[in-house]
């Protein structure tokens, strides 16, 4: 038996000094003798001393999820392992905090479930996977792409679906990779917020919101179809502070959310009747002579026509009947809103996911404008902004290969596509509406879509009419999915490629709500064989050129730090007061300007004024005035709502163990009254069904949900085939085609019924 005791070995493991003493034998014994190890390597004793004594290295990361808060993160690393994360302390917005999702990032990084290697499936959906090298994966993909080009004479048979799974700017290198291969087919548009974007563009000439931090100055806040207590936790402190300073907070939502519970007043409105409600308030403000006449006269056009419309066609009683909000509440709040200046409305994305969503946003904008609250600190019709996104899009902008042929018709551009169309080439990409992906893939001809590349997206959990999308996937000759976890989309892939997490790549991030900028440093080595999207593009380019020289223009160098640095320009430096991007290593920076939209009264509309009457809107096929538009006619007994969950962001995070502890399974939430009439009790298995499909799920009863609706959170669970998109069809929202590339989708204009299973 050896003289070394257990505690001595443990001491050596923990204490570098003891360890060095222990390791003297290494030099003495001459370890370089025959070693049977074939994996582990011998190392010189002198090198064996990388030691941390309680100290951590810190790195700057940024949450790249599709979220209002886009938090800056400080990551603490020890021994090359990320140990824990904190919110960036210098950001007054984050203020050192993260949300429940952000705090779980370490569980995501080191989850045993991560996709580790490139793999190929023998039969989609079979679960029979083989591990392949990156080299082999790239060869198989390249051969298919070359075959497509030879067969069709173009790359239009290759389609990309990518959206908001990772908003790190260098991840637009995926689009760059596609351009570098030729003219391809792109899913364009957004399921998220297009109707509201266009509405604000018609009214004001841009989507541009006040700095959320200025909400503390508001004397009246309406949170309209938005649930920041779950979806923008950092904004809540400004709302609380405003309340402390005397502001009143009203929450309007069909569902009694956590935000509603924290408001001074809550209106449980009938879904998609927001336009009627806003117009009823506008009529009362008009009748009471509370319109800000100076502001309207100096800064707007078309107000008289709008006022005529209100007088002729809108009454408070009508608005009360439509919205379900009592007339006396409408009149009192309208007066309070008009007389407590500055007053602001936060217009949520949920309320515009309707066939009349854009029209409703225009009505709410009008309410804010007519009370003189546009262009004021603490005021504003807040929706979102892209004022800090002026990067170079270096990774995105790649030349097509020489001689590439493409599509000759018009191509659409998404809201995050900041590229300018180059002069000259008459070819373009073929663009399909991202919200109708299933039918677009099924109907595409000349050429058909043969290969689909999925990145930063989980279409089989998030895209609409899921049954049809499954059919569309079957039509594909090759499906490549780039992801971190095995979800319902990976299940239907031929090849899956493991992609890096936020800790494993360099990139840069901004938000669409606050005005802060953060770099995202690589804090640890990529685990397993994960590669960043840029590295994947470079690897594909290398193989494409090997097999067919000149077939791909994407650079083959893979320094993601270098790529990140190329996204910066003078505009960004000036906006954020930076000398160099390196300044961001010390912490986040906030924009110096652009924080107060329309303060100078110069709007981006054709008239240069706020347009209560928009000829452009009329030209695009909608009402010139923000008139009331009916919602979708019900086609089943109950309204179906599929909003965001607290424990995830779209289909991300929900699979992590920390989330499973609190949210282990999906439920359909029903009002007890609705359940009683169907003989359904708490926990019963039920079938939610409509013309699109069905979902079998446990019921949970709560009077937070109105009697006429059922609610299921959008989610992807690891061990459950739950999918709310079985019930959501791809009916378009009214607006979105102008600035977002395609109309939005009427996610909440859906209906269903529930029966006991």
């Amino acid at each position: 038996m050896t003289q070394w005791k257990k505690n001595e070995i443990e001491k050596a493991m923990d204490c570098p000094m003891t360890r060095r003493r222990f390791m003297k034998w290494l030099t003495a014994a001459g370890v370089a003798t025959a070693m049977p190890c074939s994996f582990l390597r011998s190392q010189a004793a002198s090198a064996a001393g990388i030691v941390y004594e309680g100290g951590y290295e810190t790195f700057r990361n940024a949450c790249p999820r599709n979220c209002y808060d886009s938090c800056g993160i400080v990551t603490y690393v020890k021994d090359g392992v990320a140990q824990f994360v904190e919110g960036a302390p210098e950001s007054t917005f984050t203020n050192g905090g993260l949300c429940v999702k952000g705090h779980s990032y370490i569980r995501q990084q080191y989850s045993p479930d991560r996709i580790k290697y490139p793999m190929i499936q023998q039969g989609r959906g079979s679960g029979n996977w083989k591990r392949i090298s990156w080299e082999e994966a790239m060869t198989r993909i390249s051969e298919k792409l070359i075959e497509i080009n030879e067969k069709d004479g173009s790359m239009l048979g290759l389609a990309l679906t990518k959206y908001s799974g990772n908003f790190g700017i260098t991840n637009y290198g995926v689009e760059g990779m596609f351009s570098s291969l030729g003219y391809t087919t792109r899913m364009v548009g957004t399921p998220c917020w297009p109707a509201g974007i266009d509405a604000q563009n018609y009214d004001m000439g841009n989507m541009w919101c006040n700095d959320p931090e200025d909400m503390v100055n508001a004397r009246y806040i309406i949170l309209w179809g938005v649930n920041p207590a779950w979806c923008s936790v950092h904004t809540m402190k400004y709302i609380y502070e405003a309340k402390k300073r005397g502001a009143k907070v009203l929450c309007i939502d069909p569902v009694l959310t956590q935000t509603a519970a924290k408001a001074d007043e809550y209106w449980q409105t009938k879904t998609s009747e927001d336009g009627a409600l806003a117009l009823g308030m506008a009529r009362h403000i008009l009748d009471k002579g509370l319109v800000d006449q100076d502001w309207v006269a100096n800064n707007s056009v078309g107000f008289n026509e709008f006022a005529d419309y209100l007088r002729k066609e809108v009454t408070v009683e009508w608005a009360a009947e439509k919205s379900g909000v009592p007339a006396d509440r409408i009149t009192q709040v309208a007066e309070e809103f008009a007389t407590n200046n500055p007053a602001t409305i936060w217009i949520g994305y949920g309320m515009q996911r309707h066939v009349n969503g854009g029209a409703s946003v225009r009505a709410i904008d009008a309410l804010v404008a007519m009370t003189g609250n546009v262009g004021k600190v603490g005021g504003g019709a807040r929706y979102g902004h892209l004022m800090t996104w002026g990067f170079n899009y270096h990774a995105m902008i790649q030349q097509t290969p020489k001689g590439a042929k493409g599509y000759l018709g018009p191509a659409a551009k998404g809201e995050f596509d900041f590229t300018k169309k180059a002069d000259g080439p008459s070819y373009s990409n073929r663009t399909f509406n991202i919200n109708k992906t299933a039918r677009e893939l099924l109907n595409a001809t000349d050429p058909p879509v043969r290969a689909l590349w999925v990145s930063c997206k989980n279409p089989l959990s998030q895209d609409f009419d899921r049954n049809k999308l499954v059919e569309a996937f079957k039509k594909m000759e090759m499906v490549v999915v780039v992801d971190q976890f095995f979800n319902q989309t990976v299940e239907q892939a031929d090849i899956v490629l493991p992609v890096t997490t936020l800790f494993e790549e360099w990139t840069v991030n901004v938000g669409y709500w606050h005005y802060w900028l953060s770099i995202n440093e690589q804090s640890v080595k990529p685990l397993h064989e994960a590669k960043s999207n840029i590295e994947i593009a470079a690897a594909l380019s290398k193989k494409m050129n090997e097999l067919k020289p000149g077939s791909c223009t994407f650079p083959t160098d893979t320094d993601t730090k270098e790529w990140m640095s190329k996204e910066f320009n003078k505009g960004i430096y000036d906006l954020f007061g930076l000398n160099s991007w390196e300044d961001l290593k010390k912490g986040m920076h906030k924009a110096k300007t652009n924080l107060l939209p329309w303060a100078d009264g110069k709007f981006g509309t054709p008239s240069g004024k706020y347009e209560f009457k928009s000829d452009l809107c009329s030209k695009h096929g909608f009402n010139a005035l923000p008139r009331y538009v009916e919602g979708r006619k019900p086609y089943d007994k109950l309204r179906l709502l599929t909003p965001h969950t607290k424990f995830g962001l779209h289909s991300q995070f929900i699979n992590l163990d920390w989330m499973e502890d609190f949210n282990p399974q999906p439920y359909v939430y029903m009002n007890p009254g609705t359940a009683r009439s169907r003989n359904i009790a708490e926990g019963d298995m039920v079938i939610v069904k409509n013309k699109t499909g069905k979902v079998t799920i446990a019921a949970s009863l709560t009077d937070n949900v109105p009697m006429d609706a059922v609610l299921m959170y959008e989610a992807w669970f690891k061990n459950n085939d739950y999918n709310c998109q079985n019930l959501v069809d791809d009916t378009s929202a009214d607006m979105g085609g102008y600035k977002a590339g395609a109309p939005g989708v009427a996610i909440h204009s859906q209906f269903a019924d529930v029966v006991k299973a």
Partner: protein
Amino acid sequence: MDTVKNTTLAALRNFFLARSGEELNAACITLANHNGKTKDLGDMDWEEAEFAFNKLFVGPMALQAPPYASYYIEAEPQLMGESTLKVRRLYDMAGLVSPLQGHLPDDHLGVELDAALGLLSMAEHLDAEEPSALWHYFLHEHLQTWLPQFLNQARNAETGHPAVDLALDHLEAWFNDQETKQEGFDQ
């Protein structure tokens, strides 16, 4: 350390680090010829073996029996936990380092079996007590804390295959043999 055990241990390492059905096949041939006795592998379907192996140990689906020590040792299952770093330091004390440090967790079963080979060999051939002490520690204070759980989870997993069973049987036999042979530390 006798050559037969050495060969078996190397084959187990190769099995758990395998990247393909062919590599599983090669490792299993060695295991089947264990100790002079030859077990007939028959018409084993190595593609099916590979699919099963990947479902259990590789992915891309959530693993049925993660072959990482920290998954079993940490209070909350994860890779690259504090216990992984302890294993890394133990390798360091034996003058060993993973060429994939930071990418492949140091406590992947295949890597640990490779370390076992190295430690046993050093303990046998080198004129120093430290390798033997390290092996004792590795066996009793580390492998013992997770390998039985791993074997249990792998055997009771939804997916199984005779090739996997063969490797698990050999792994268990080797481990029990070591456990019996090596007395623990005086507490």
